[in-house]
């Protein structure tokens, strides 16, 4: 169903993961995840070590945040994020690189998986693991299944279907063992027998490597049984949670439902890696892999960095040769769903997977024409919606009709706008309409709940 086939453009696919040097200052946001912002538990002037918790969850759906460097807390103040909006940041001046004692910094692979799922889940919670595929949903919340729900299949998302991005691919190639062990841990926590790695078939090396690793690990312990690799068709957005479940399990999540309703839990490759590090190495989420790419950067300046959380973007970009002259747009993430960056001094967060530079020719919106009713947006929509209709309804604020036509199901993948020959800003309007409809639905749910409790 639906989907588009943009040019792959994985220019940085052969660039090895490299650790970025420490920046002089890091600014760590307290809301790096979906849900309530974390509450700072350090004060200005405190000395912190790498891996020390500096903010605690501000609610159930929230996550721990750890210092990614060692040094002195200089500020806890509002700062600007990548889009220029205000967030609270904990600014830490870097002094040396002193880690918390219990963190195992060696490269030795710990293949023995403990039996106690509860204890491992607690470790995941304390390590501040969040979904690193982009949504940054707290991992421990996802892995704590609601009573009565049964997970039948854990899907590890290695699609990386966005053009340009290669950090998941490099992680699969270079840290395949850790990722597979992480997946086995998640499998153990969820109490599920089946685990499938969904990897797009434009990454044959990764598919082969993971298959090999699984084979190797299976000989060590029965806990690695039931893990397999499934090559998937290259298509955007194959890595969308709902699309991936459809592709792997041939089941569709009902509108407004969760993957667990059809027995699925989806976890990103990097999340599996962070779960491995949290459980086996006691290492919280303090760094993540960031692809720095773009045609205008030139071949030598493509990078896959491992970056400490809170490193300013400008520091990363300087290490990749600076902002190229011809670049006119910087994007946090891929070209289809990434958010535009208006503030290059903003720091990274856990979910930052890439910094992409595009030239004006590649990215500038083309002049808008009349809708010629070709229906390309509808056949491209992976959710089977009709963007042309939603656009028309959206420009007239017809919320009832919008809800009837399922605007709330939109996943914002951008296929409609990508494929529109008349360059109609379909997604821009649909996003607004979706927000409005979601607001109405939320208010209605609250009203019915209030009526019931009466």
């Amino acid at each position, binding site marked *: 169903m639906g989907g588009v086939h943009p040019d792959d453009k994985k220019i940085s696919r052969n660039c090895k993961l490299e650790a970025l040097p420490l920046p002089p200052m890091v600014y760590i946001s307290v809301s790096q995840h979906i849900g309530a912002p974390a509450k700072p538990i350090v004060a200005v002037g405190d000395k912190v070590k790498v891996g020390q918790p500096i903010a605690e969850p501000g609610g159930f759906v929230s996550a721990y945040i750890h210092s990614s460097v060692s040094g002195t807390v200089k500020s806890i103040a509002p700062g*600007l994020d990548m889009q*220029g909006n205000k967030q609270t940041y904990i600014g830490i001046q870097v002094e040396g690189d002193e880690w918390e004692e219990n963190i195992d910094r060696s490269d030795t692979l710990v293949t023995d998986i403990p039996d106690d799922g509860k204890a491992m889940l607690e470790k995941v919670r304390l390590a501040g693991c969040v979904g690193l595929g982009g949504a940054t949903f707290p991992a421990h919340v996802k892995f704590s299944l609601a009573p009565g729900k049964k997970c039948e299949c854990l899907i590890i998302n290695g699609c990386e279907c966005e053009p340009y991005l290669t950090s998941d691919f490099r992680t699969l190639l270079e840290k395949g063992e850790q990722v597979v062990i992480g997946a086995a841990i998640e499998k153990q926590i969820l109490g599920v027998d089946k685990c499938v790695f969904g990897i797009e078939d434009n990454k044959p090396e990764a598919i082969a490597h993971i298959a090999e690793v699984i084979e190797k690990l299976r000989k060590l312990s029965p806990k690695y049984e039931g893990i397999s690799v499934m090559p998937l068709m290259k298509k955007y957005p194959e890595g969308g949670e709902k699309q991936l479940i459809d592709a792997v399990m041939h089941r569709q999540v009902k509108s407004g439902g969760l993957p667990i309703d059809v027995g699925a839990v989806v976890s990103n490759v990097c999340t599996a890696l962070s779960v491995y590090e949290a459980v086996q190495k006691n290492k919280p989420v303090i760094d993540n892999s960031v692809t720095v790419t773009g045609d205008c950067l030139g071949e030598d300046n493509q990078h896959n960095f491992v970056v400490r959380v809170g490193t300013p973007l400008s520091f990363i970009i300087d290490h990749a040769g600076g902002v190229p002259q011809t670049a006119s747009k910087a994007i946090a993430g891929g070209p289809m769903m990434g958010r*535009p960056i*208006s503030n290059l001094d903003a720091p990274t967060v856990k979910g930052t997977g890439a910094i992409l530079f595009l030239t004006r020719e590649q990215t500038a*919106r083309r002049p808008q024409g009349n809708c010629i009713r070709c229906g390309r947006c509808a056949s491209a929509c992976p959710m089977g919606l009709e963007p042309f209709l939603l656009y028309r309804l959206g420009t007239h604020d017809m919320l009832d009709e919008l809800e009837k036509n399922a605007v709330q199901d939109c996943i914002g993948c951008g296929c409609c706008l990508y494929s529109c020959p008349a360059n109609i800003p379909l997604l*821009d309007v649909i*996003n*607004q309409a979706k*927000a409005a409809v979601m607001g109405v639905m939320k208010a209605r749910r609250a009203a019915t709940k209030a009526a019931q409790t009466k």
Partner: protein
Amino acid sequence: MSSIVIWTIVVISVLGLILAAVLYLVAERFKVEEDPRIDEVEKTMPGANCGGCGYAGCHAFAVAAVQNGNLDKNYCPVGGNDVMKKVADILGYKVEEKAPMIAVVRCNGTCQFRPKVAEYDGYPSCKVKAATFSGDTLCAQGCLGCGDCVSACQFDAIHMNPETGLPEVDQSKCVACGACVKACPKHIIELRAKGPRGMRMFVSCMNQDKGPAAKKACAAACIGCGICEKTCRFGAITVTNNIAYIDFNKCKLCRECEAMCPTGAIHDVNFPIALDKAAVKARVMERQKKEREAAAAAKAAANESAASAETLSATN
């Protein structure tokens, strides 16, 4: 031949009678009994159906007015006191006079004062733009300039000025329905009292950044220095979150704050005589100097009396 004519006439007449009977019966069957006063009230309304009163339209307003039994929750900003008086007469209710309001754009960030640091390239709608990023200038609170307020206005009373990039309210057309206030994602439009002969003062800025940051973003920003607050003799100005706000119920239109404002963020409207900033400033400075001296003298006197009291007690 004639029989055809006669038949035609007969058939058409009978058909007409039957259909008329059907229409009458249907109209009787589905007749809705409505309080006749609702219709009467509705007729006095402006009929713009703008929703400025908080109801879905003029009919809904009339229904609510009749059913509520009073006019506490009903006020038509478009018709103003005249219409409300008529409504009150029809229904026999009392109505309070309200000061007429007008929409005021509280952003001073013209292209000249507020340099652009990014270039927006998406759908030209303030809502979409606000959801995408904080804005193409360094001011995160300022006008985005895509004109959502203009398209929200049913009275053709607000327009973008292409030179400044800011919307301007047409005072003769604005009826204070509040549609633009709701449309603006940055909440920079406010309904304020029109003031005597249309004269009013307001702080034309919403920037909540600290002084230097605000100044960097926009040369005409309110930097939250608090001079106006100190200048005001009527306690009409308060500074919260680095932004000054003039309470239009307390403001006496002396324009001293405007003269003292270092960035020109305070604006006056419809004053017949232009403000002589230097003169007013000198006057205020003079007054403040005197006040300081008086305060110092009073303090000195107090100190003295305290000291003398001390010496007195010491000698005792």
